[in-house]
């Protein structure tokens, strides 16, 4: 029979008996300090690094707590382990194939059918990388201006193509290409947030970093005017 009191008693006994309590406390304290540094930091890179370091400290603390447990049939540990495994599989592997679902859902078509330069522009960005991969640009039928990236594809709505000037569109493509370039690492940030219960606070920073990349590659004005048009 499951009892919260028994579980808490188990945690108290196992953690204090394992001798890991000082290290766990130090790790939690370090995580709190890093969260504090995240809140105080201004640059997007420093914010992401300090937040990720804090999450890693939290993960180490959780790992030490789990490893110090010697009670049998701990329901909370079993639930957490199942949650960690399922969320890892979903977050790390689903995005790799989800873009295929998106192509079908939006009825997306290769952009080369209506415009040639966007695909060539994205291909040229790929060549600048150490390990270039294929990135397809798709458009889909909607008047609502929107752009997003998933898996190996960039999606642009027709409404976006209608209202953007060439430079603005280049900035958007560069922004989305930056997301794709980092899409092996960003799901890790999401997963860290899931398994440490700290919430995903890196999205804004990632958007800022993608904008900085687009501004360097195209122009700051193009990024800003595209942002204004997208409201």
């Amino acid at each position, binding site marked *: 029979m499951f009892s919260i009191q028994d579980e808490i008693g188990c945690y108290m006994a196992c953690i204090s008996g394992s001798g890991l309590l000082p290290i766990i406390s130090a790790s939690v304290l370090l995580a709190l300090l890093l969260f504090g540094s995240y809140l105080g930091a201004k640059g997007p890179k420093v914010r992401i690094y300090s937040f990720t370091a804090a999450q890693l400290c939290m993960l180490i603390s959780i790992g030490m707590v789990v490893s110090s447990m010697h009670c049998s049939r701990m329901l909370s540990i079993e639930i957490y382990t199942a949650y960690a495994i399922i969320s890892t599989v979903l977050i790390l592997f689903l995005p790799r194939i989800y873009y295929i679902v998106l192509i079908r859902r939006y009825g997306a078509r290769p952009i080369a059918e209506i415009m040639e330069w966007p695909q060539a522009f994205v291909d040229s960005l790929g060549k600048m990388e150490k390990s270039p991969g294929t990135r397809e640009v798709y458009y889909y039928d909607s*008047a609502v201006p929107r752009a997003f990236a998933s898996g190996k594809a960039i999606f642009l709505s027709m409404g976006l193509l209608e209202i953007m000037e060439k430079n603005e569109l280049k900035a958007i493509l560069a922004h989305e290409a930056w997301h794709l370039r980092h899409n092996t690492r960003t799901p890790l940030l999401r997963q860290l947030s899931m398994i440490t219960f700290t919430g995903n606070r890196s999205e804004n920073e990632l958007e800022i970093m993608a904008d900085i990349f687009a501004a360097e590659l195209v122009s700051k004005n193009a990024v800003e005017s595209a942002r204004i048009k997208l409201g």
Partner: protein
Amino acid sequence: MVKLDRINISNEGLTKFFSPIEARIMTVLWEEGERTTPDITESTGIPLSSVAGTLDRLVKAGYAKRTVDKKENRVRYLYYASESMDSTANTITRKVLDSLVDTFGKVAIENFHTYNKK
């Protein structure tokens, strides 16, 4: 919403059957013919953020149609009404009458006759 199951008889004019934005867009398409998205925002005075989603809904509901126009390495939508205003009025009237007869049968038909005599 462009759904005849949401008719609001207390509203004025076309807004009985369409939302105010939908009504203004459809009026532009009926009166001015083929129009681009910027033309529609200009004629209606409604910002793009509201017009875009509404245009998607009108196209999905079948009241408006659009084609993709490619010009000098740029693309744009061209919108037009699927049917004339009279045909749309005919479709709506028929659906409403069918619905009334379905629900009230003889009473509805007697009322049509009375209304006709007036």
